C-alpha cells in the first residue's frame, strides 16, 4: 500500500529524516514510535503528501508519487490524516465533518447521511448542530476522526491522536481505530510515544530516533528482542547489564557480568564477545534473604536501595554490584516486607532476558 525508499528530509540543511525505507501492507496497522524529535511526525506528514521530501522515492497504492503534479490532490483524497492538536473550522459539527465531501463535490443530501454515520461511529450522534468551538478537546479530536472517515479513505494517518486527551476520549478513539481495521480493512499509520497504545493498536511498530528507523518489528519483537540499547531503553527494558559471552550451550548463552556472577540467557542464534544483557523489570521475581526459589533461574543477590509506587505495581531498585530494577505486584511487596537495606534474591528466567551485541 505504502512503500518508501531512501526518504530524506533536510529543511534548511538540518537533517530531520535520513534514509527511511519501509513498506506498509494494505490493511496493516503500522505504528511509528520513539522519543520526541525523532522524526515521527515529519515522516507521517510526508506519507500524507503534505511535505515534499528532499530525497528518496514514495509509492502509494502502487503509484509512484510525482511531487508537484496535480495528481497529488487525487492521491491525498484517497487518504486522510488526524493531527495531534485537533482543529475545527469555524462552523458547526456537521459542516466540519462534511468538509472533505464538499471538496469532492458530493451532493448535499448524500453528505448529510454520511455525516450522520461518521458521527455515530465516533459516538457523537446528535452533535450535528453544535458549534465546533464549544466542544472539548476529546470531542474535537473525535470530530477530526469523523471528518477523515466520512470520505472513506484507504489509509488513515494519525499523528499522536490521543497525546493531550483524557483517558475516556483516549479509549473511545482507540476503540474507533481498532474497529476501523476490523470492519473496514483500512490501512492505519499512526505515531505515538505511548508504547502500550502502539502495542494495542498496531501489527508492527517502527522505532524512530534521530530521524532514522532504528528497528521495525512486531510489538513483541521490539519488547523482547530490542536490537540496540536505544530501543531497549525506549521499550522499557530498563536493566542493561554489560558482560562477555563465555560459552554457548543448546540455545543458552552464559554471560559473565562480574568476577563471580554469570547469567544464563536464551538466544536464537550463536553469539560471542561483548554483549549487553537486557532484562525487563517485570520479568524479575524477588525473594527475601538468600532463599532463592527456582533452581533453573538466574540468581542475583542484592540489597534494596529504593522503593517507588508505579500505579498498581511497586518499583524496587536493588544494588547487586550494579543497579537492578524490579517491578513487582503490590501484594508481593507487602508479603515480602521490603524496605531499604533488605537483602533479597532477584531471579529471572533465561527466557526473560535478551542479549544485545555491542558494536
Amino acid at each position, binding site marked *: 500500500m505504502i512503500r518508501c525508499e531512501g526518504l530524506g528530509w533536510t529543511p534548511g540543511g538540518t537533517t530531520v529524516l535520513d534514509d527511511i525505507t519501509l513498506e506498509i501492507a494494505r490493511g496493516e496497522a503500522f505504528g511509528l514510535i520513539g522519543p520526541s524529535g525523532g522524526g515521527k511526525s515529519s515522516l507521517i*506528514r510526508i506519507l500524507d503528501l503534505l511535505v515534499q521530501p528532499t530525497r528518496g522515492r514514495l509509492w502509494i497504492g502502487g503509484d509512484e508519487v510525482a511531487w508537484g503534479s496535480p495528481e497529488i490532490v487525487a492521491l491525498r483524497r484517497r487518504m*486522510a490524516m488526524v493531527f495531534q*492538536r485537533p482543529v475545527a473550522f*469555524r462552523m458547526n459539527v456537521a459542516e466540519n465533518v462534511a*468538509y472533505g465531501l464538499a471538496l469532492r463535490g458530493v451532493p448535499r443530501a448524500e453528505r448529510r447521511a454520511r455525516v450522520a454515520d461518521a458521527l455515530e461511529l465516533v459516538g457523537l450522534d446528535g452533535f450535528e448542530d453544535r458549534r465546533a468551538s464549544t466542544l472539548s478537546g476529546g470531542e474535537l479530536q473525535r470530530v477530526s476522526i469523523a471528518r477523515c472517515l466520512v470520505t472513506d479513505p484507504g489509509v488513515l494517518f494519525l499523528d499522536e491522536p490521543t497525546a493531550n486527551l483524557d483517558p475516556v476520549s483516549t479509549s473511545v478513539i482507540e476503540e474507533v481505530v481498532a474497529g476501523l481495521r476490523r470492519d473496514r480493512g483500512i490501512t492505519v499509520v499512526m505515531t505515538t510515544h505511548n508504547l502500550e497504545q502502539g502495542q494495542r493498536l498496531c501489527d508492527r511498530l517502527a522505532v524512530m530516533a534521530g530521524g532514522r528507523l532504528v528497528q521495525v518489528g512486531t510489538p513483541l519483537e521490539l519488547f523482547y528482542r530490542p536490537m540496540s540499547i536505544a530501543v531497549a531503553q525506549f521499550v522499557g527494558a530498563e536493566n542493561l547489564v554489560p558482560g562477555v559471552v563465555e560459552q554457548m550451550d543448546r540455545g543458552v548463552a552464559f554471560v559473565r557480568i562480574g568476577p563471580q556472577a554469570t547469567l544464563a540467557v536464551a538466544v536464537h542464534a550463536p553469539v560471542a564477545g561483548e554483549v549487553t544483557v537486557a532484562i525487563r523489570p517485570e520479568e524479575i521475581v524477588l525473594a527475601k534473604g538468600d532463599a532463592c526459589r527456582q533452581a533453573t533461574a538466574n540468581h542475583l543477590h542484592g540489597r534494596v536501595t529504593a522503593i517507588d509506587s508505579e500505579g498498581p505495581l511497586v518499583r524496587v531498585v536493588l544494588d547487586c554490584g550494579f543497579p537492578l530494577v524490579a517491578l513487582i505486584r503490590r501484594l508481593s511487596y507487602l508479603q515480602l516486607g521490603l524496605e531499604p537495606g533488605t537483602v533479597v534474591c532477584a531471579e529471572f528466567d533465561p527466557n526473560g532476558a535478551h542479549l544485545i551485541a555491542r558494536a
Partner: protein
Amino acid sequence: MSEIVEGFLQAIDLIVSLDPEVMEITLRTLSISLSSTLLATAIALPAGGLIASREFPGKRGLLYLIQTLYSLPTVIVGLLLFLLISSSGPFGELGLLFTSTGMIIGQSLLILPILVGLTIAALSAVDPLIRDTLASLGGTGRQQVFGLLREARYAILAAVALGFGRAISEVGVAIMIGGNIRGYTRVLTTAISLETSMGNLSLSIALGIILLAIALVVNAGVNLLQGGGRA
C-alpha cells in the same frame, strides 16, 4: 455659537423632512462607495490569498510596499488617475473624467492596499494546522485558498468595513475625478466642503451627521457579525 446651534437644528430638520437634495447626495455617496468597496474587495481577496499562500522572492518587500500604501494620500490617487483619464491621457477616450465610474475606480485604487494588506494579515493569523487540514482533506489549491478566506472571514469583514470607511470619507478623488457636479457627481464630502465655503452651515452639518451615522451603522454591523462569529 448660536450660528452653530441654529445650523444644527436646521440640519435635523433637513434630515427628518427627507430633503430631496440631501437624500440624493446621500444615496449617490452610498452607491459610489459601496461599488468601489465591492470592486476593491473582488480584487483584494484573490490577490491577498495568492500572496499569503505563496512564498516568492521579494514577498517581504511587496508586503512593505502594500503597508506603505495604506496611507496613500487621496489627492495623489486623484492626480495619478486624472493624468491617466483626462482627455490627453492614455485612457482619455473612455470619457471617465467627471463621472461616478471614474470616482469608483479612484476610490477602489485608494483602498486596494488596505484591503490586500489586511486580507494577507487575516490569512496569516489563521492556524497553520487549518491549512494542513485543508490540504490533507484533498482541497485543490483554489479550494484551500477559499477555505482559508472563509476561516478568516470576520477579520476580512473588518478590513472591508475599514476600506469602505476610507472610501466614503475621502475628498481628494471625489473632487479631482468627480468634479463635484451638482446632481451628477456630488457626494457627501465634496458637498460639505462646498457648502461650508459658501456659508450654508446647516446643510453642511446635516450632511456631516449623515456621514457619521453611516460610519456608525457600518461599525455596529461589523461588531454584531464578529460577536456572532465568536460564539
